């Protein structure tokens, strides 16, 4: 089902005209309301008058996570605080969170986008949907929740953590749709399989995001549970979940293009690449009031197609993600940069000991082990002291990234050194 045919099935010309009109407005908004953006534009000699249509977008400077960090917490907000009705935040690279704000209209548009995605996944007001994303500063829980309510589905705000309870309610409430991370879906599927409960649930579809997963994983879970599984994409900087989602044909994720203008650029030269070619995904928010972002570099690598989809939608589709142009990892839905681990280890005093992050997936749940070389200054001949050291390192890392980690002490020089740029991550998960 198509939630908003007038927007999702617009002709390419109409879409371009709408995007042009909205871009001009968005550029004016940030230029006049956000000093940081005004200065950025002045630095490259661009004025709002230079932007007359979507084709002029390449004249505008890029925005990155660093810009959000530099203006922490509210420096990029383009609406007065009286109009901001909600904030969300995600972990940043140096411990500082990336903060985003929403006006009431932003929340409405977000709910509209999520409703479109859920409709594409076959969810209607006849369905009961469990939202098993974390509720809180993370956009996943509340974002999916508002969208599902907007759609008129019966929403079970499950949140995460208690799989047994989730399954009991899934059975008792006749839950037909589930929104969660892909790894959690696999975990739920295995739990259902083990208890022989697959036949006792009425689940029809799962809408999964916030984490990379493979087509193989998607097909595997579809088969195991006898459901349709969909890939939903979003990032808090742009809005949250619902920026894009695939439809029943699974031939790329439909971007809510009337609100978020996608570009694909070379991660090295930042020059635009042709449709179908892989590059870094860049988004410009066209209607956002709270924190509009111009040409925000997502660092996600993908390609784009503007061909009409078999489902009838004309919106641009982005392919399954092919990785990142930076070193960010997504572990249990949490964004983690090696630099955060490095900064945390620095708190141990002196210089950073050599370390390696080992990311793996055990029973469909991500695990993070940090191996730290025990230099002489950390070494004690008492096990108790070494255990305290392990705990202390685990604590500072957990404080920095918000994820529990296993710390393993290893001998000096035992971790592999690479030639050139230091490699601090071994990702054993097969996600791309």
């Amino acid at each position, binding site marked *: 089902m198509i939630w908003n045919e007038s927007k999702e099935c617009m002709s390419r010309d109409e879409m371009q005209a709408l995007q042009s009109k909205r871009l001009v407005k968005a550029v004016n908004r940030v230029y006049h309301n956000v000093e940081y953006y005004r200065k950025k534009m002045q630095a490259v000699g661009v004025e709002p008058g230079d932007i007359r249509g979507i084709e002029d977008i390449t004249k505008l400077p890029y925005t990155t996570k660093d810009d959000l960090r530099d203006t922490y917490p509210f420096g990029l907000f383009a609406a007065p605080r009286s109009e901001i009705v909600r904030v969300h935040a995600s972990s940043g690279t140096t411990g500082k969170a990336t903060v985003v704000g929403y006006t009431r209209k932003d929340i409405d548009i977000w709910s509209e986008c999520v409703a479109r995605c859920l409709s594409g996944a076959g969810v209607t007001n006849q369905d009961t949907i469990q939202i098993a994303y974390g509720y809180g500063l993370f956009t996943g829980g509340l974002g999916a929740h508002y969208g599902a309510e907007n759609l008129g589905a019966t929403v079970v705000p499950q949140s995460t953590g208690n799989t047994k309870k989730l399954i009991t309610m899934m059975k008792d409430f006749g839950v037909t749709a589930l929104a969660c991370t892909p790894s959690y879906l696999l975990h739920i599927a295995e739990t259902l399989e083990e208890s022989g409960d697959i036949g006792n649930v009425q689940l029809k579809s799962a809408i999964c995001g916030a984490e990379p997963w493979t087509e193989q994983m998607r097909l595997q879970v579809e088969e195991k549970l006898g459901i349709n599984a969909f890939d939903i994409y979003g990032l808090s900087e742009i809005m949250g979940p619902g920026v894009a989602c695939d439809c029943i044909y699974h031939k790329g994720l439909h971007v809510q293009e009337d609100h978020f203008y996608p570009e694909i650029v070379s991660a090295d030269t930042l020059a635009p690449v042709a449709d179908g070619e892989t590059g870094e995904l860049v988004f410009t928010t066209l209607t956002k009031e709270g924190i509009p972002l111009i040409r925000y570099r997502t660092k996600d690598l993908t390609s784009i197609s503007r061909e009409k989809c078999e489902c009838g939608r004309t919106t641009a589709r982005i392919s399954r993600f092919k990785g990142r142009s930076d070193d960010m990892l997504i572990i249990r839905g949490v964004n983690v940069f090696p630099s955060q681990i490095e900064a945390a280890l620095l708190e141990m005093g002196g210089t950073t000991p050599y370390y390696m992050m080992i990311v793996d997936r055990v029973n469909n749940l991500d695990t993070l082990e940090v191996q730290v070389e*025990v*230099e*002489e200054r*950390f*070494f004690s*001949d*008492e*096990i*108790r002291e*070494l*255990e305290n050291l392990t705990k202390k390192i685990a604590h500072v890392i957990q404080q920095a990234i918000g994820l529990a980690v296993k710390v*393993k*002490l*290893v*001998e*000096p*020089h*035992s971790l592999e050194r690479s030639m050139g740029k230091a490699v601090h991550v071994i990702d054993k998960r097969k996600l791309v």
Partner: protein
Amino acid sequence: MYIKQLSIFIENKAGRLEDMLGILKDNGINLVSLSLADTSDYGVLRLLVSDPENGKAALKAAGVSCKTTDVLAVKLAHKVGQLQELLEVICKAGINIEYMYALATGKDDASIVIKPSDIARAEELLKEAGVEFVTQEELANI
């Protein structure tokens, strides 16, 4: 009389203990006694050797995390209750034993290596109790 113990950080994986001992062997260092405290991931190898300083230098040159620690090596007679009586002296003073292990000197006594939480005070108390210590020189000549 303190003696120097050589302590080495060692990962709990095949071959590492042998590698460490190989370094000492190549440098002509004799092992007198050892204890290995282990966890699932790593262990601490504690050694009494003929020449702790040179042993440490050789291990450091090989990039190993090691250090020397002052410990007490106490001579005990082969008699029932000897160790208990000795520990009583230390424990009554509120001193904790961080770790201990046996030391075979090849003579007709049973020696024990102790790392007390307060080594100076422990030594003082044991001296008062008339206990005899093994010296670094004795270790070098075993």
